[in-house]
């Protein structure tokens, strides 16, 4: 896998997580208090920095084969879950991820709560809402950076790709101060699910001792094959529109 492919894979995956975190922070800031929301962001980033400082050097010490086995297994489970949701959404069996709707729900929930000052934080609810959102989505960013980066022994490049994704999404969020509805999030999640699944399959099998025909070049077959298979599954699931409509209503 080349450095360019690593950068693109990490950038896309982290951009999706950053869009979700930005929606929560914007809701916390707009409905409650910008100061509290930004304090929550700072607190979560501090915790994430500690996690990276603790795990980063440890991960780079693990032998490559063992690392590929564990990381491949995690990426494959993660990727298949993403792909499963993306296929259900694309085929109409699950409601599309809608940042506007999530933003409205977060705003309604946030407006209904009493304001309470704790220490330097003027509004504790706004702080915790923002803190949890950034921490949970940030943990996924850390996971993606460490797994992709450590497997290629390019954690630095993976971290730069993640930082670029977060910076671009955060800048867009600050500029428009509303949910990032124009980001093609559902399509991006589909692509990321394909990449996580393909790389997880490749690294998992290598870590388990298998040798791919053509070594790294087999990824050039694996990625499009996973994409084609996912599209076939979307087409097959779309053949039952009545069940799909019922499923969306229930979800």
């Amino acid at each position, binding site marked *: 896998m080349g450095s360019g492919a690593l950068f693109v894979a990490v950038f896309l995956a982290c951009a999706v997580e950053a869009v979700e975190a930005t929606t929560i922070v914007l809701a916390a800031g707009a409905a409650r208090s910008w100061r509290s929301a930004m304090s929550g962001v700072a607190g979560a980033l501090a915790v994430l920095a500690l996690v990276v400082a603790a795990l980063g050097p440890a991960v780079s010490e693990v032998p490559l084969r063992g690392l590929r086995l564990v990381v491949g297994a995690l990426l494959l*489970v993660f990727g298949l879950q993403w792909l499963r949701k993306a296929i259900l959404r694309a085929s109409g069996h699950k409601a599309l991820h809608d940042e506007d709707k999530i933003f409205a729900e977060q705003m309604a929930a946030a407006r209904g709560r009493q304001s309470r000052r704790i220490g330097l934080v003027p509004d504790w609810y706004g702080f915790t809402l923002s803190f949890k959102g950034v921490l949970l989505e940030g943990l996924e960013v850390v996971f993606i950076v460490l797994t992709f980066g450590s497997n290629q022994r390019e954690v630095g490049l993976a971290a730069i790709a993640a930082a670029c994704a977060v910076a671009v999404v955060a800048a867009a969020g600050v500029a428009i101060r509303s949910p990032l509805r124009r980001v093609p999030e559902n399509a991006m999640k589909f692509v990321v699910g394909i990449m996580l699944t393909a790389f997880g399959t490749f690294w998992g099998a290598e870590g388990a001792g298998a040798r791919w025909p053509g070594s790294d070049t087999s990824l050039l077959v694996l990625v499009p094959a996973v994409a084609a298979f996912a599209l076939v599954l979307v087409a097959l699931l779309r053949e039952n529109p009545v069940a799909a409509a019922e499923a969306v209503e229930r979800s």
Partner: protein
Amino acid sequence: MAGRIRGFAAFWYDFVVGDDWLIAVGVLVGLALTCGLSRIAFPAWWLLPVSLLLLLPLSLWRAARRGSGGG
């Protein structure tokens, strides 16, 4: 305290395993079989892709039958 431990475990279960435990179990079985075949010097690279061909449709069928994919 027990509630916090349960909550912590539930968070990591949700983070790693997600909506369908069948996928996690299937991946572990696929990796174990790949490991086993590789140890006896049998070509095993095809096993995980075949697992994927079985697991993903099965998990989607279960989700469609239930009416929602969760999360």
